């Protein structure tokens, strides 16, 4: 008999803090993560979601991975492995992008940050950390650049919401008003020097993601300082539950749901982040061909018109009851107070207003195609 290795559940440096706060913990992509905090702390998915839409919320997102590419050919390397045009990035700027397979489908979606002249940081998803790192390393061997996996070096905390900037400003000497959306800066945070702060997030709201040293003491200290400084803004600790409903309202893709190794860029509707005009990148040829032969399905937004909640994996039916597609993510949308879903359906069902059904426990429940994103933050 061979010994079966027990799968190890990974923990972020803030794990003990979450447990102490009484968070309900779940396993997510091999990580022991908070799904929501107790009502006594202002938590619960709906409260957490609303705090981010109206004030501020903080998330431990240290399960996200970080890959650094540095060296003379770092830019050509990043260009080769990602679909957006990294040559447009000024130092301190970031962009949403994706790593693609030669088929034009997704290895992962990423945020590419340009930190220096020849230095880039890719922030990647938790569930794909190891896969992404090997993939990046293997596909950049021909370039003169060093690829480093920095995933375990950082505790990553997301401070999100219309008041996030005011909150973080209390804790740093950097002038955050000068940092535009999808730009980064460095500054002292809670007395820690040269902390990277990016005006990025996964909530469809304004906010920052900060990268602090990953030892438990420092991580807990900063987390608590943010909660104290955020009191006047109604800050609430937020778990993966609210993270998911927030990103769904904003139609931000989740790997394994809206994007995967069987879904291509055109189907996912991420055209504007895919720069076919730039030099060759992995997946480009297949995407060109896909465009020429035609795209047959697309990602749509659905709003339930009858009583029922669409959930991930549920079937989508046409008005005659025939199965035409499936829900990739579905949930109540706490801010919009509607039940919404994202789904893949054939092109002819994409127009706004198309009446469809979602099969819920054997019943076809009414839904309609609506414009996406479901939620857009108000412009100041």
């Amino acid at each position: 008999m061979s010994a079966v290795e027990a799968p190890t559940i990974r923990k972020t440096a803030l794990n003990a803090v979450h447990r102490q706060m009484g968070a309900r913990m779940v396993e997510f992509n091999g990580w022991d993560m908070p799904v929501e905090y107790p009502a006594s702390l202002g938590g619960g998915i709906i409260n957490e979601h609303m705090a981010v839409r109206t004030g501020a919320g903080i998330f431990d997102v240290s399960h996200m991975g970080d890959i650094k590419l540095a060296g003379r050919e770092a830019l050509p390397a990043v260009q080769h492995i990602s679909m957006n045009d990294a040559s447009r990035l000024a130092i301190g700027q970031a962009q949403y992008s994706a790593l693609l397979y030669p088929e034009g489908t997704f290895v992962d979606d990423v945020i590419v940050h340009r930190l220096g002249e020849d230095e880039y940081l890719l922030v990647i998803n938790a569930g794909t950390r190891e896969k992404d790192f090997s993939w990046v390393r293997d596909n950049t061997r021909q370039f003169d650049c060093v690829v480093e996996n920095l995933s375990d070096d950082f505790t990553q905390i997301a401070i999100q919401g219309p008041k996030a900037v005011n909150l973080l400003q209390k804790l740093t000497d950097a002038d955050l008003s000068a940092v535009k959306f999808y730009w980064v800066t460095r500054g002292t945070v809670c007395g820690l020097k040269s902390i990277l702060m990016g005006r990025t997030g996964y909530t469809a709201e304004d906010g920052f993601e900060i990268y602090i040293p990953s030892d438990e003491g420092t991580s807990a200290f900063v987390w608590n300082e943010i909660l104290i400084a955020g009191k006047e803004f109604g800050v609430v600790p937020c778990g993966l539950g609210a993270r998911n409903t927030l990103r769904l309202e904003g139609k931000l893709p989740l790997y394994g749901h809206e994007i995967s190794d069987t879904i291509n860029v055109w189907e996912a509707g991420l055209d504007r982040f895919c720069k076919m005009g730039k030099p060759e990148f992995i997946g480009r040829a297949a995407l060109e061909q896909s465009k020429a032969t035609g795209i047959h399905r697309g990602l749509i937004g659905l709003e339930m018109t009858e009583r029922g909640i669409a959930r991930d994996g549920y079937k989508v039916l046409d008005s005659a009851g025939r199965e035409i597609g499936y829900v990739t993510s579905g949930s109540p949308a706490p801010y919009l107070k509607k039940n919404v879903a994202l789904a893949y359906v054939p092109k002819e069902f994409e127009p706004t207003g198309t009446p469809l059904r979602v099969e819920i426990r054997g019943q076809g429940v009414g839904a309609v195609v609506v414009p996406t994103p479901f939620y857009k933050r108000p412009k100041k």
Partner: protein
Amino acid sequence: MPYPTDRKYTREHEWIQVNGNSATVGITDYAQQSLGDIVFVETPKIGAELTAGRTFGTVESVKAVSDLFAPASGSVTEVNGELASAPEKVNSDAHGAWMVKITLKNPAELDALLSASDYEKFVAEEAGH
């Protein structure tokens, strides 16, 4: 949270309160707490027949879908219509926010259910596993 002693409990976290031949059914405080914010309650229609141990409806929170299991067999005489528009009542008062009332078919089925103190022990074990 003390569990009321005027009723019995299932291992699937429903409670049933018997009053003569009829009984009221809901979910426990432990159930509402593990589900989180409840946003949807689906109950059967009046006249529907419940079978002990079988599902008879659904409770959904923002994150999860959970079946309701019948603590006893019987036919539905009343449903709590208030929960259709205010499902969050289950969070605020799980032991008061009942879901259905039934006429018991076989009251002896209740002998198999847990008392309040046994249920309390059961959830303590489940929570501490």
